[in-house]
């Protein structure tokens, strides 16, 4: 006879604020001011415009690669707005834009995509790997998973310093199969680290659907197994993500330890500009998620509250497109980084082999046009 009762999964529902009719659930509504809501909307809209533009630049051969977060804007924007300036962010591929919300210049952001001499990262990383010390954001490497335990360690250091700061580490649904995700959970709970681990479950890991990624009923339950309080949130509901992050952040600041938030969402675009999703997923599925678009959801709410109408939306779009275009025009003409800078930053100061190799490189003609 089985003696140990198997508990019912508590993840059946999603934490939501925005209802389909555009009203907000008063029990969970954060009651943001019209100004806060306007800022939230502007940020989401700008991210939508920016991502679409970057993908076009790649198609035009003006940049080499882009990984867009279209359809997933709610999480980066809500997180950016819910954090304090001293908090640290360790994004995965689809959360770079948090730094824009926290004051990083759009021109510097776009310069990273061009990888030219205006890029703070000196053209070393692929596009969509932005990093900025001014806003406490550390780029992901490209490897899936390593940033998650790094966020936990950062939080452990904050805890020692006695600060009320927190660190936030991101993962995709696919990344939750990596040992690094599990290391992060083990350490976060064991040391009650003041951190949030947030998974954007966008239902796909390139061509592998979440159902084939894991037999776990939800992603959230994976955190609970390690003793990390875990919630499952409607990731296309920007107010719900905002409330979940705000509350988890407050608990962490008060010494309440880590939280894990699964944001259930959908990757509307290709995995990246190198991918063709028509090979592995149906139009119907994409269409069904288009009807749950996170921007539509917020805009329905704003219209109902009398904070947005067609004219205001059109004007905002024009303004944001112009802002993005101006930033592109400003940074695109910058020359590529010098080839000599390759040898900088490997160590704090270059070792003798690097100095030798730099001297040798300066003797040979430049490589044919860098693409």
């Amino acid at each position, binding site marked *: 006879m089985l003696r140990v009762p198997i508990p019912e999964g508590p993840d059946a529902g999603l934490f939501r604020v925005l209802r389909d009719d555009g009203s907000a659930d008063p029990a969970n509504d954060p009651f943001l001011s019209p100004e806060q809501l306007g800022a939230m909307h502007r940020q989401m809209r700008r991210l939508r415009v920016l991502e679409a533009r970057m993908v076009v630049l790649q198609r035009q051969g003006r940049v080499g690669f882009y990984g867009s977060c279209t359809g997933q804007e709610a999480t980066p924007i809500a997180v950016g707005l819910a954090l304090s300036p001293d908090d640290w962010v360790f994004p995965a591929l689809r959360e770079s834009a948090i730094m824009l919300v926290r004051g990083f210049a759009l021109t510097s952001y776009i310069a990273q995509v061009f990888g030219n001499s205006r890029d703070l990262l000196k*053209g070393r990383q692929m596009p969509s790997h932005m990093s900025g010390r001014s806003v406490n954001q550390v780029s992901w490497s490209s490897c899936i998973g390593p940033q998650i335990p790094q966020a936990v360690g950062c939080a452990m250091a904050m805890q020692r310093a006695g600060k009320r700061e927190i660190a936030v580490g991101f993962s995709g649904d696919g990344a939750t199969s990596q040992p690094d995700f599990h290391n992060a959970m083990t350490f976060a709970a064991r040391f009650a680290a003041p951190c949030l681990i947030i998974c954007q479950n966008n239902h796909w890991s390139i061509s*592998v659907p979440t159902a084939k990624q894991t037999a776990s009923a939800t992603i959230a339950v994976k955190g609970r197994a390690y003793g990390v309080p875990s919630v499952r949130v409607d990731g296309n509901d920007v107010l719900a993500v905002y409330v979940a992050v705000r509350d988890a952040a407050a608990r962490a600041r008060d010494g309440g330890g880590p939280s894990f938030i699964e944001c259930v969402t959908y990757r509307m675009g290709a995995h990246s500009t190198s*991918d063709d999703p028509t090979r592995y997923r149906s139009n119907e599925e994409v269409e069904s998620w288009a009807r749950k678009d996170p921007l539509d959801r917020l805009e329905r709410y704003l219209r109902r509250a009398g904070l947005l109408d067609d004219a205001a939306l059109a004007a905002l779009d024009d303004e944001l497109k112009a802002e993005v275009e101006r930033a592109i025009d400003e940074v695109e003409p910058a020359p590529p980084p010098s080839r000599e800078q390759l040898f900088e930053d490997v160590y704090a100061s270059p070792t003798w082999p690097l100095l030798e190799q730099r001297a040798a490189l300066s003797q040979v003609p430049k490589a044919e046009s860098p693409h």
Partner: protein
Amino acid sequence: MPQINMVQAINDALRLAMQRDPRVLVMGEDVGKVGGVFRVTAGLHEEFGEARVIDTPLSEGGIIGTAIGMALYGLVPVPEIQFSDFIFPAYDQIVSELAKMRWRSGGEYSAKMVIRTPVGGGIRGGLYHSQSPEAQFIHVAGLKVVCPSNPYDAKGLLLASIADPDPVLFFEPKRVYRAAKGEVPEGPYTVELGKAAIAREGAHVTVVAWGAMLYEALEAAHQASARGVEAEVIDLRTLWPLDIDTVVASVKKTGRVVVVHEAPRTCGLGGEIVSLITERAFTHLEAPPARVTGFDTPFPYTTELDYLPLAHRILPAIVDAARY
């Protein structure tokens, strides 16, 4: 004979191996329905089904760890690591487990498998879609390491690797995945492991290269010829155990050698090749052995063509060796 590219040749080898031997299976991230991010496993899922063409969870350690278990039990896994830059989460399984299985079990167990993985730069992949980590595996006793440069060799070497009793790391130079085309016979054949090929004969300087850089070495040899220097270009093909006889015989003939690789210079395979040559052909050397390699830096995004040891960097090394 049909002209095909490397992607098609490797695909053909996998299909033949799976048709001939029901123990052979393919596993990895995105290798199933979508046929791999480089389309190397295209069509295998349809032909052999999910049980033999397995879309795995996103965990390289999980892929190689489970492949070892399968191999111990008698299957012949051909796992794919999506980019060789992402092999490191599996490094522990490969280095601590796979490589040592035969030895530590007194020869009772072995975990024969072929780990396929795209390697090298030149596709605008930045730090983590460009690296060449072959030396980090050669340094580990118990692994064989292969890197073909053309479709004919790719098919024959992959079939030989699958037939080999030992674990093989099969590095596929992605820069020439589609660019390198050639005639490939239908049906199975093998190219023997451990045998290099002379890609170009020449009397003055030996150039040792492999993978995508073979074409740069050939281009540099072509340009050197215009200056009266005839380079002999060796395509190493099997990086370990390398074909010492072919390399040494060539150096004894020319007295001069340039080794080319994309990987960083320090502790790269070039250093080992130069040591082997000095140990075995010291008295034949007329010039210091030279290395033209990637730099001791991470692999850059924007300036990748300055990083790679392309023909314009190989040419002066050949000419200098000849004129020494």
